[in-house]
């Protein structure tokens, strides 16, 4: 063991203590008992990365270990402390390459932080005053007491630009000046440590990690304003903070720092602790003072402000923990040093409690003005569980949500307020797609409603009314006008409440309405909760997540009982394309599967694949014959998934719709662009034949605009038309040389091969784009004999819109992926044919409106990739004129056709639309769902009634024991054809499971539907129709 003294510093923050840090201290002390004191073991305050606790550092090596258990202690002692070898297993992996990063200073979590307030947290023993003094602690107090006047202190604060960290951001120097100038004795200094915002633990960590820093700040304040008594008001939920604070005050008193004569100057200052008693409103300053006085913590109107008439009617200076903790650093390092950090309006740093759906949750301190996205991704490491970022809730119940389009917002007082949130004390909760914003608003309202002290009517009654409306919306009983009422009430409560609690109480509701109005609307109109959270609206999260609303627990449990035909019929109640979706669906059901919180989601698509493979006789759904409907004429334009699904559901209501398909084979994208190795053609043909058997007539080689117009169909007596022509035109690169021979559009390329049976393929193929079409084109080119296939994409691989499984298979088959690569020129060779693609390297920059990091010029030298064919797959668009002709139809802002969410109706009452033509390029199952909605909408328009009998949920008669423990079987992958057999072959890549694998997988389902009463969803009312 080296002779130099080393230290094992174990984080003693609340999070790590809860994870077993104190046990670690004992284990280390025991293990090092024979080390002659050359290694010191001690605790320190919160280091920040609470989620990976307990954490520790070994100094002076600067090595950081996380998630250390008692069993790791011997290894750390033997390997690191004796042999000098870092235990890499316990190091945090790098966010970029996953390699262990031993040094704390090199970790992304710490590298992007600037610690001013938390300067001592995690470094010194919080209750040891000597350690605090060794870092220069109380020097600032001493120097202020001995050589600065109160005026000078206030002037330093003015220059520093420090603003109140409790949330409102009032300039600290002004408050101090008011308090100093106020008439009356005695004066008080009070610290607000009643950190009541759920999701905030900044103050807790300072109180626990550096109590002397707070005491010093308060002592400087007392000297400046002339106060002799101070109080720290701490919430009772923080017993550790209270105990450390008590020890620190006692130590400061014994050292002559506090008491009758601060540091021998003859100036008296006593400090006491008052514990809260579980009333959130006591975080409001006038209520807090009432509580210290021993009364009910009810606020009173201001003015008079506490600086004039505060505790017992005396002038009182009230600041937040973080504000005081900044003071010694400003005095020690000078105000200019502090003012150099942050933005012009918001100087210095801010501590945030980063929590929620983020990988590295914990306590972080960054300069003011740091973009939100950097905080979440660079420090927080991004979103957990592969989900995507939805919103950040900032400022607690007084704050608001910031959605993904504002990830680039700088975190300073003004910018955050502009977006309808508030900086607040710094609680920052990250939310992913599993969070329902209406439910979040309801949660906060419930909180403030419970915590409202009841003194003023707007807050007491107003928040109650708002809560009732929100509860109704979440329960599926919302009505039109509810959103507007919430907005009106919210504004009134803000304007008329007595204190900050009421004035800010509507913020979470107003801000979620501002950014997520569509979610409120979906709850009210469609009785749909897209996040799968609201219990009354969600039978099972998988079913709720399925755009087509397929009864997932139903078919899964039926398959589990080997009732395959019943399972299929149940699936086809809501989605005719069971066999198609078993191959190509992007399975949002699995993303929402609750089993994932236990181990891994149920492999629903795999079960579906097994189910459809058992279909020997095609399973027809229930059809209601209707002679009146049979006579009505309905046209469907486009024989893709949306059009065929619309025809299917219309036929089940007794209609006999006619489909007009431009190509020679029906199926749309399913047959034209999705390759046969993903979707065998006979599988598709079989389900289309089933639809035809129900009475849907399909006319092929009939193209809108070429062979007929919408008005022609109207003239022929069609009463309703469903327009589902997709988005068939490809976008172009708009770069030099794009007209070279050998540059093709991906959909053209795929269509030509899939419909005509052959297509020219180069030897060196470059595909441009990151979507499914790009991957399909790349894998098709490889199968058709290309020697090298490279996919270039301008963003990063994680940002590729293509399904992850498809990308993985493509790489497996030998496709090269070059991300962060932007084509800038197609270089022509002989005969104006493609010779190479010139590209530039990109880098990820700030966050764009889609919440993804923008790809920006990387600054490197352009380079070329040799190619004799370039396939462009950068998106699809709609040529509106060729579709609509002279017909006037309203368009949405994205250039696609505007349709009613519920019915698919356009601005022309007889014209309905769905699928890519209405939504922009989307998923197969989304198109199927749109076809169903339009079928119901068309029926509703023609008859004035809603007959969609398949929307009634079914009670299941499958067995389930709710008390049994979940079965321990793992999620199973789908077997695949070996790679070497894929060249020159369009044989289906995915293989089915055998029966026992499938049945076991079914039993993994947790049956979230169990015990819920079946309801009928999405009822159309006469008024919903216009």
């Amino acid at each position: 063991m080296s002779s130099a003294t080393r230290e094992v510093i174990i984080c003693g923050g609340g999070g790590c203590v809860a994870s077993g840090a104190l046990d670690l201290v004992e284990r280390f002390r025991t293990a090092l008992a024979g080390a002659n004191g050359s290694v010191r073991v001690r605790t320190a305050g919160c280091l920040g990365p609470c989620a990976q606790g307990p954490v520790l550092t070994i100094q002076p090596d600067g090595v950081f270990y996380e998630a250390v258990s008692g069993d790791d202690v011997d290894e750390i002692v033997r390997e690191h402390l004796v042999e000098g070898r870092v235990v890499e297993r316990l190091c945090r992996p790098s966010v970029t390459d996953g390699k262990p990063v031993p040094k704390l200073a090199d970790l992304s979590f710490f590298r992007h932080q600037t610690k001013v307030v938390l300067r001592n947290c995690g470094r010194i023993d919080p209750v040891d005053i000597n350690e605090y003094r060794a870092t220069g602690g109380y020097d600032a107090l001493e120097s202020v007491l001995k050589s600065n006047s109160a005026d000078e202190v206030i002037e330093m604060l003015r220059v520093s630009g420090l603003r109140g960290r409790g949330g409102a951001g009032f300039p600290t120097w002004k408050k101090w000046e008011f308090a100093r100038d106020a008439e009356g004795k005695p004066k008080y200094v009070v610290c607000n440590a009643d950190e009541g915002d759920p999701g905030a633990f900044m103050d807790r960590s300072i109180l626990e990690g550096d109590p002397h820093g707070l005491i010093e700040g308060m002592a400087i304040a007392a000297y400046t304003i002339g106060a002799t008594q101070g109080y720290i008001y701490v919430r009772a939920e923080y017993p550790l903070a209270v105990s450390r604070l008590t020890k620190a005050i006692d130590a400061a008193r014994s050292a002559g720092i506090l008491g009758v004569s601060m540091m021998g100057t003859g100036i008296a200052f006593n400090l006491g602790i008052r514990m809260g008693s579980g009333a959130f409103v006591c975080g409001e300053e006038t209520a807090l003072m009432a509580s210290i006085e021993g009364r009910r913590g009810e606020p009173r109107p201001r003015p008079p402000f506490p600086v004039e008439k505060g505790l017992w009617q005396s002038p009182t200076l009230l600041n937040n923990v973080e504000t005081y903790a900044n003071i010694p650093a400003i005095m020690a390092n000078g105000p200019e040093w502090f003012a150099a950090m942050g933005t012009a309006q918001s100087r210095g740093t801010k501590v945030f409690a980063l929590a929620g759906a983020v990988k590295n949750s914990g306590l972080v301190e960054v300069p003011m003005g740091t973009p939100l996205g950097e905080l979440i991704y660079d420090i927080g490491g991004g979103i957990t569980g592969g989900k995507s970022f939805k919103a950040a809730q900032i400022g607690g119940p007084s704050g608001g949500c910031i959605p993904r389009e504002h990830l680039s917002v700088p975190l300073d007082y003004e910018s955050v307020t502009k977006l309808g949130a508030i900086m607040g004390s710094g609680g920052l909760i990250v939310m992913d797609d599993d969070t329902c914003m209406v439910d979040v608003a309801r949660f906060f309202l419930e909180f403030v409603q419970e915590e409202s002290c009841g003194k003023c009517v707007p807050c007491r009654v107003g928040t109650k009314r708002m809560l009732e409306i929100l509860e109704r919306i979440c329960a599926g009983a919302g009505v039109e006008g509810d959103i507007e009422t919430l907005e009106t009430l919210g504004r009134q409560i803000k304007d008329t409440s007595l204190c900050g609690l009421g004035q800010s109480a509507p913020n979470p509701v107003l801000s979620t309405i501002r950014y997520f109005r569509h979610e409120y609307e979906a709850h009210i109109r469609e009785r749909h909760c897209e996040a799968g959270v609201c219990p009354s609206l969600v039978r099972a999260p998988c079913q709720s997540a399925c755009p087509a609303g397929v009864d997932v627990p139903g078919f899964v449990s039926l398959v589990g009982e080997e009732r395959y035909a019943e399972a299929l019929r149940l699936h086809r109640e809501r989605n005719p394309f069971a066999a198609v979706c078993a191959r190509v669906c992007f399975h949002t059901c699995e993303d929402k599967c609750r089993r994932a919180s236990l181990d891994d989601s149920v492999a629903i698509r795999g079960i579906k694949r097994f189910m459809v493979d058992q279909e020997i006789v095609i399973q027809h759904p229930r059809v209601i014959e209707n002679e009146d409907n049979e006579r009505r004429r309905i046209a469907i334009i486009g024989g893709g998934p949306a059009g065929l699904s619309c025809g299917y559901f219309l036929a089940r209501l007794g209609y006999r719709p006619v489909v007009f398909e431009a190509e020679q084979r029906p199926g749309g994208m399913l047959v034209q662009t999705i390759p046969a190795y993903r979707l065998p053609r006979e599988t598709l043909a079989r389900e289309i034949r089933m639809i035809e058997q129900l009475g849907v007539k399909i006319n092929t080689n009939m193209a809108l605009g070429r062979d007929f117009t919408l008005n022609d169909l109207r003239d022929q007596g069609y009463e309703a038309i469903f327009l589902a022509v997709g988005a068939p035109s490809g976008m172009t690169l708009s770069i030099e040389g794009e007209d070279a021979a050998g540059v093709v559009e991906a959909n053209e390329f795929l269509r030509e091969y899939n419909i005509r049976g052959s297509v020219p393929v180069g030897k060196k193929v470059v595909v441009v784009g990151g979507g499914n079409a790009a991957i399909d084109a790349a894998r098709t080119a490889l199968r058709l004999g290309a020697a090298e296939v490279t996919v270039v994409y301008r963003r990063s691989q994680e940002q590729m819109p293509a399904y992850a499984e498809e990308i993985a298979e493509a790489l497996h088959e030998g496709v090269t992926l070059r991300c962060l690569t932007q084509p800038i020129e197609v270089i022509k060779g002989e005969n104006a044919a493609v010779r190479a693609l010139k590209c530039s390297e990109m880098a990820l920059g700030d966050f764009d409106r889609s919440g993804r990091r923008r790809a920006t010029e990387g600054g490197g030298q352009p380079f070329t990739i040799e190619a004799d064919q370039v396939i462009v797959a950068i998106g699809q668009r709609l040529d509106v004129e060729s579709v609509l002709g002279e017909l006037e139809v309203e368009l949405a802002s994205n250039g696609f056709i505007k349709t009613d969410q519920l019915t698919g109706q356009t601005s022309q009452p007889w014209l309905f639309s769905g699928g890519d033509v209405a939504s922009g390029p989307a998923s197969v199952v989304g198109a199927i769902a749109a076809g169903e909605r339009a079928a119901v909408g068309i029926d509703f328009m023609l008859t004035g009634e809603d007959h969609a009998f398949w929307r009634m949920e079914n009670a299941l008669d499958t067995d389930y024991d709710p008390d049994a423990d979940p079965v321990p079987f793992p999620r199973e992958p789908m077997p695949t054809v070996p790679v070497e057999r894929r060249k020159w072959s369009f044989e289906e890549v995915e293989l089915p499971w055998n029966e026992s694998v499938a049945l076991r997988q079914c039993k993994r389902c947790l049956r979230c539907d169990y015990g819920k009463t079946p309801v009928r969803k999405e009822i159309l009312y006469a008024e919903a129709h216009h």
Partner: protein
Amino acid sequence: MSSETDVSTAATSAIQPPPIEQQEQIDAVIAAHRNESGALIPVLQEVQQLFGYLSQPVLYCIASRMGIPFSEVTGVVTFYSYFTTVPRGKHTVRVCLGTACYVRNGKQVLSDLKNELGIDVGDTTADQQFSLEVGRCYGACGLAPVVMVDDDVHQRVKPARLRELLAPYHKPTSEEDPDE
């Protein structure tokens, strides 16, 4: 004692004074805060620490000893959620419903705990073993969802594992003290 009998009007005469040893403990707490302004809340906190809850006789005793109207004392006690006027179970199970825990499935944990214990929030099980409460953030957001059983923090609680979590607390007192 005389001042206590003076204010014992008809309305409060039904209230029996607490046992003499409790009165002595209350007196000691009050004495420790004698020269403090606004001492009522610290006194109530410490007395609740001693007795587990604040019974009406105890409150009445505090009011008369401190010379504060009984109505004011009751007003303070009912205002703050920390104070309880009924006895609690042997173990207090607190489910955090702070924002971080809430968005990480805390609601599901609570509803499953209600089923598991067979009681609603604020209630105590018939065998006086568990009281169920809801908390608003224990500052352990990095470990969400959190359940506190007495002073133990249970982190990243999975609804399906609640029974295992409660098992160690289930030991009946008779097993611990077989002699009694």
